[in-house]
């Protein structure tokens, strides 16, 4: 009998963090401008300790201003989606759940498209203008979260089947709205939207947005992690969890809210990157088991690693053109999913 301890979790997370660091260093090597590993290590350490060291102007600006922020965005988007997917799988007691199953991503897309349509017609201050589209996306996400929650209750309590149903229906409805809105967009926006809907990390974010993404991730993760023991019990059965002292209602509400918010944030910033929220939890389960006290942080690191790798591939395979990162995750994700499914059935 070897129960999970905090130090075990910490050690394993340390290993995952190391892997993430290595992946980031390798990812930094790829791009338009060649970068030396030595110079890279100096850069990275300089950034990590909070000051920019003397970097050669050849690649310093590119690494600092474009590549690193892009990789950082990938880390937090990937971590958010993974943690959200892991949480929804526990909440809905369904291994096929992913962050988009409750319709949040479609709501975010509708919000972003509406923002894109409205924007030319209203005068905005420059600071607001840079975050207008993601803000619209996040508002759309919040609205969807609220509506799905209200519809997903049965006799006043969140009920899995009802929640899933209302989420799927909301998603279908919003999908149709998206299709309609796209025909209303001016043609250049349409093309841009199509790229974004597939998941796109290529445009640099404003610093405010980056801050919101990071803070939102840490806050959402903390909220969910505090329920990790409860989630383990929920997975053993709802009634059992209740009899074992879990406040099922509160836990489900908190997890629903936090996981949906994480998804909304990620999608508002980068579009719908698929398969990460579905597959990373399963792969981490294969490695670390089903205890959520380990699985949640493992999923966060796993998601970050997956998206950074996918994004690096997306911007190098067809260089100088860029593939949408969602296309890469789909191409890799679908066969991987089939493999995992067959393994499970074996």
């Amino acid at each position, binding site marked *: *009998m070897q*129960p999970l*301890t905090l130090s075990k979790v910490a050690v394993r997370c340390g290993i995952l963090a190391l892997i993430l660091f290595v992946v980031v260093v390798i990812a930094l090597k790829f791009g338009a401008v060649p970068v030396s590993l030595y110079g890279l290590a100096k850069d990275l350490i300089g950034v990590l300790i909070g000051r920019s060291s003397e970097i050669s102007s050849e690649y310093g600006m590119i690494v600092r201003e474009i590549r690193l922020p892009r990789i950082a965005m990938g880390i937090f988007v990937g971590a958010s989606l993974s943690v959200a997917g892991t949480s929804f799988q526990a909440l809905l007691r369904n291994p096929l759940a992913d962050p988009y199953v409750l319709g949040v991503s479609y709501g975010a897309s509708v919000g972003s498209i509406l923002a894109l349509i409205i924007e030319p017609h209203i005068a905005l201050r420059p600071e607001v203008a840079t975050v207008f589209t993601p803000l619209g996306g996040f508002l759309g996400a919040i609205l969807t979260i609220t509506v799905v929650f209200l519809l997903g209750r049965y006799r006043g309590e969140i009920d899995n089947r009802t929640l899933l149903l209302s989420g799927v229906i909301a998603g279908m409805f919003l999908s149709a709205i998206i299709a309609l809105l796209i025909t209303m967009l001016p043609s250049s926006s349409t093309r841009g939207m199509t790229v974004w809907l597939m998941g796109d990390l290529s445009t640099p974010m404003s610093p405010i947005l980056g801050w919101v993404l990071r803070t939102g991730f840490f806050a959402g993760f903390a909220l969910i992690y*505090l329920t990790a023991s409860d989630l383990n019990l929920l*997975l*053993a*059965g709802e*009634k059992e969890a209740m009899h*074992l002292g879990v406040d099922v209602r509160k836990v489900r509400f908190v997890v629903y809210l936090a996981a949906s918010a994480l998804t909304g944030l990620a999608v508002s910033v980068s579009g719908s990157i698929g398969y990460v929220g579905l597959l990373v939890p399963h792969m981490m389960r294969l490695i670390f088991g*089903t205890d959520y006290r380990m699985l949640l942080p493992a999923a966060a690191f796993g998601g970050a690693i997956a998206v950074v790798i996918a994004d690096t591939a997306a911007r190098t395979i067809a260089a100088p053109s860029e593939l949408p990162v969602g296309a890469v995750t789909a191409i890799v994700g679908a066969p991987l999913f089939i493999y995992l499914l067959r393994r499970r059935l074996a």
Partner: protein
Amino acid sequence: MNADARLSVEQVSYAYSPNPSQAPIFTLEATSFQAKPGEIVAVLGPNASGKSTVLKLIAGALQPLSGRILFNGMETHLMEPRLRAKRMAMVQQESQLLFPARVWEFVLQGRHPHGKSLRFENEQDVAIAKNALLQVGADHLTDRWMDQISGGEKQRVILARALAQQPGLLLLDEPTLHLDIGAQVDFLHTLKKLTLANKYVVVIVTHELNLAGEYADQIVLMQKGKCLRVGTPANVYQRDLLEQVFQTQLTVESRVNGRPRVSVLEKSE
């Protein structure tokens, strides 16, 4: 265990409305009984007699329409969930694990109510879990997977998890339903032993007449939501009463140990 750990069910009733416009359906009418530490109470009756409702009310999963249920002097449905889980434990028939788990992981879940919400088990928890498995005679199963053990073994493990909660009150919901005869007897025998040793108050819901007659100290006989009689098995197992409740012809004999045995007769044409 505390000598005051007494369960008191006082004139408890329950009704619910499937939807607001319909009149409420009474699943339980005023029912009362009491139980002391070291005592097994069997709530007995055919299907839809309200016996599961009694258990859910005691467990605090439902709120009584009238009357109250006290354990250790506190009303059970008013207890904070964590506290309640430290006082009483539910043993259900099956487990609903979504992902496979090992026996020891399962039993360790019983330690959840002790301490803050996010917790990592310590040595004391491990010791208590080990002891619980020992007490139910399932310690040889410690490292096995839950979905690879037999029905009888699983029932013991579920009991072990309940014991790990260190409760004063054990609630069992038809625990022998899916077990074969040998496993049924084993289980109840172990339960009786533990009840006496650890002074649990035990309420067990069942429709097995003879098992209840053999192992229970008190019988609460239910039919269609009404409590017909409360008393010792010898008192309650009266032929006319049982025939009325179970709608079948039977005979009742008294055995050497004073406990009754019921035999169901074939239907005569």
